[in-house]
């Protein structure tokens, strides 16, 4: 009997051990490969062409910490693109990185442009060829890019991104020199943004230099650029994006065109009605005059705030100086309509390129995506993290009111990824916005009595210079 129990115990034990061992075949650390299906696209050599949005410009500067979260960098991570190189610039970058130095206000100041290129010896073109300030013209302009660092453009980024004519004498030439299998193009915003951010005073129209690039010129330049790329990389697939509505960015929609009580931040009411700001604006025939802002259609630009704090634009009866805000800080209803006409014309051209090449070109409808974002914001379904287009608090746009934050660029990356997946049958995962770090610079500082966001005009001037392009032809 004792032998029976003994054997039974041993057999039972062996059975249990066997069960345990059989259950544990996966205790080792092994690679987890999540390689996306590229569909009919091939991301082996991918190059991104564009402007500051493509470069990863943020809060007034191009700097390494933001470039790591540029939408090209995010797409490269999701597509598994090896050897993805960007023209990194050490923090705080170049351009004058804006920083909140006091939340009570808040007070915003620019850091010095003391960044240095970190990756300038790369012996081939960068995968991210986005150049802050670039126009569609610059994509195919083969004249000296070094000269663009001097007057009138004073734009240092062409030299930093393109570096050496031996790598190609234009962004398109450098892109093709990589023998790309996939090309992303998001260009054209500056052809209207330069006009808009100057309050309609400076333009890129070759005839007048005071209007957006005219649509025939844009059409010629854009199609020439795309034809060069389509022919130069005959097997490559493309993703191209159209131009967002400027009304969808805080630079144009943060400052209301009416007088606001700094204490309550509510509009001042006289006889029950809000009081329009005094502005320089155009009448229907295009004549400039000093008058009241159109509260429905005029856009007061973000930099007007520093003047408004000094009483400019506010009637003398309400304690202001009674002098109007200058033309350069007001995008009046006439100018808004010119901006909208230009954008519609550009987007029609961009659409037609996509339509003509349905198997090779995916189109990102940035215009609709940004308008939808402006209307509804974005709520992360998993975490509830919520982004809106509000200045500073919205979390989507950085302190320059024009360029996205890390999360904003993640959203942009997803806009591209959706189009790529749909058109090419790929299955790239989208960027998880909830776990991207906050990127609006916040410094410690002493308290201030200021009630409004203060950005010194000199800082805005430096920052906006790259958009305010003139005489470049």
């Amino acid at each position, binding site marked *: 009997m004792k032998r029976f129990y*003994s054997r*039974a115990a041993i057999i039972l034990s062996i059975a249990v051990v066997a069960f345990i061992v059989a259950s544990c075949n996966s205790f080792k650390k092994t690679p987890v490969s999540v390689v996306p299906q590229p569909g009919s696209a091939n991301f082996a050599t991918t190059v991104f062409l564009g402007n500051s949005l493509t470069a990863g410009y943020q809060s007034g500067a191009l700097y390494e910490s933001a470039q790591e979260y540029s939408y090209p960098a995010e797409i490269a991570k*999701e597509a598994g693109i090896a050897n993805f190189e960007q023209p990194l610039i050490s923090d705080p970058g170049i351009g004058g990185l804006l920083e909140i130095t006091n939340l009570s206000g808040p007070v915003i100041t620019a850091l010095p442009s003391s960044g240095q290129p970190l990756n300038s010896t790369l012996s081939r073109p960068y995968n991210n060829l986005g150049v802050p300030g670039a126009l569609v013209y610059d994509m195919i302009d083969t004249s000296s890019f070094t000269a663009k660092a001097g007057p009138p453009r004073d734009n240092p980024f062409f030299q930093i991104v393109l570096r050496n004519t031996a790598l190609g004498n234009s962004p398109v030439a450098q892109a093709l020199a990589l023998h790309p299998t996939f090309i992303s193009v998001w260009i054209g915003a500056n052809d209207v943004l330069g006009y808009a951010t100057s309050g309609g005073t400076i333009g890129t129209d070759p005839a007048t230099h005071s209007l957006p690039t005219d649509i025939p010129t844009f059409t010629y330049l854009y199609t020439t650029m795309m034809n060069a790329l389509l022919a130069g990389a005959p097997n490559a697939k493309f993703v191209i994006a159209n131009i967002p509505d400027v009304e969808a960015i805080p630079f144009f929609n943060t400052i209301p065109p009416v007088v606001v009580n700094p204490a309550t931040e509510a509009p001042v009411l006289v006889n029950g009605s809000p009081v329009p700001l005094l502005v320089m604006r155009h009448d229907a025939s295009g004549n400039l005059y000093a008058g009241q802002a159109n509260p429905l259609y005029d856009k007061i630009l973000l930099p007007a705030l520093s003047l408004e704090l000094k009483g400019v634009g506010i009637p003398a009866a309400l304690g202001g100086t009674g002098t109007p805000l200058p033309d350069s800080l007001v995008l009046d209803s006439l100018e808004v309509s010119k901006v909208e006409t230009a954008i519609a014309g550009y987007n029609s051209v961009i659409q037609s390129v996509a339509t003509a090449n349905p198997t090779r070109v995916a189109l990102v409808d940035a215009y609709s995506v940004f308008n939808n974002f402006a209307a509804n914001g974005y709520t992360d379904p998993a975490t509830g993290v919520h982004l809106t287009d509000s200045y500073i608090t919205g979390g989507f746009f950085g302190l320059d009111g024009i360029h996205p934050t890390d999360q904003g660029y993640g959203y942009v990356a997803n806009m591209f990824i959706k189009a790529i997946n749909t058109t090419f049958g790929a299955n790239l995962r989208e960027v998880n916005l909830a776990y991207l770090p*906050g990127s609006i610079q*916040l410094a410690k500082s002493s308290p201030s009595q200021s009630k409004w966001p203060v950005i010194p005009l000199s800082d805005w001037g430096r920052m906006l210079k790259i958009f305010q392009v003139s005489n470049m032809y």
Partner: protein
Amino acid sequence: MASIRKLFASLAIIAVWASSAFAGGYQLNETGAKATAMGGAFVARADDPSAIFFNPAGLSYLKGLNVMLGGELILPSTTFRSLGPISTQTDMNSISFFPPNAYVTYSMDNGLGFGVGLFTPYGLGTDWPTNWPGNTIVTKITLQTFYINPTISYSYKHLVSIGVGFDYVLGSVGLAQKVATPFTTEPTATLKGNGNGSSFNFGVLVTPVKEISVGFSYRGRANLKATDGTLSFSDLGALTGQSQFANGTVSTSVPLPATWFLGVAYKGDRYSVEADYQWVGWNAYTSLNLNITQGNTTNEKSIVGDYNNSYIVRVGGDYKISEMFTARAGVFYDKNPIPDMYLEPLLPDADRLGLNVGVGVNVTHNMAIDASYMFLPFKQRTITNSAIGFNGTYNTTANLLGIDISYRL
């Protein structure tokens, strides 16, 4: 411009708490070095003072006054790899824990036994780098419990013994995480609370023949109720003074699930073996509710876990080398209770394999030292459907060293 005054009203404090939980398989069964060395397969033997934990019916078979004191050094190591074609790895900070155990028992010749035990059957700690990708979920979490367990047992003719006990539970919980803001400044939110609770346990030990014993023990669910916990913020920088970051109070109740052991043991002249099945009632964790009060505002956050009941299969034995030395070994397989979608870096749990060895030394007639070593590999676990959108691969191993000193009068 109205938005400027309410500049931070929209900063989502909700994001702070949306994904917090003291979650997961935070059970610890390593409450005695002798039992641990045999893979925790001990309910049918329960022949040292840790019987108070494993099976209080075993108290009747101890002799005289026994005191046992020791603890378990736990050294876990976890890595997280993000999911994607280009993956980044985060190594958890190295941490160690030493949950102690202490038992005093007295057994009379008439079959009555008494005792009181102090041990830590539930506990948890994770410590991630403060700048890691999941820092808005957790940077640091601790859960400590102490069970004070007075016990009584009675045996009838060495055939059947029963034991019952009462558990008074003391505990503390702590959680630190970064607050999601649009800014480069990342404040740290810290939640701390102390609580208490109660439960009971009982056990049965049947010895139909001298060589065979069958044991069953049960410990009921306790709820660790913390009513006056604190919420505080640090690393605020320029965000100091914003009302979202005012100190607050927190109350919550952490479930400490019921568990039972069923085992059979065979005792030979020089060796013994035992096989156990342990059930753990993890479906007690459906969600954790946190009531957070800041100023006049109270928010309740419910964190869904929907854990499954789980089990542990154990087998182990010992071999008496001499009067002085006994060698021990055991293995167990521990099925984790957390559904994939609710697995979070708070507790990167996975199915575990416990490989145990140990030795017992009778230093003198009255004094013994038991030591155990456990290697505890976790299955690699890849999450692709996280409810909070935090997907990736977790790998964990742990080394555990146990020691107990027993003194018998």
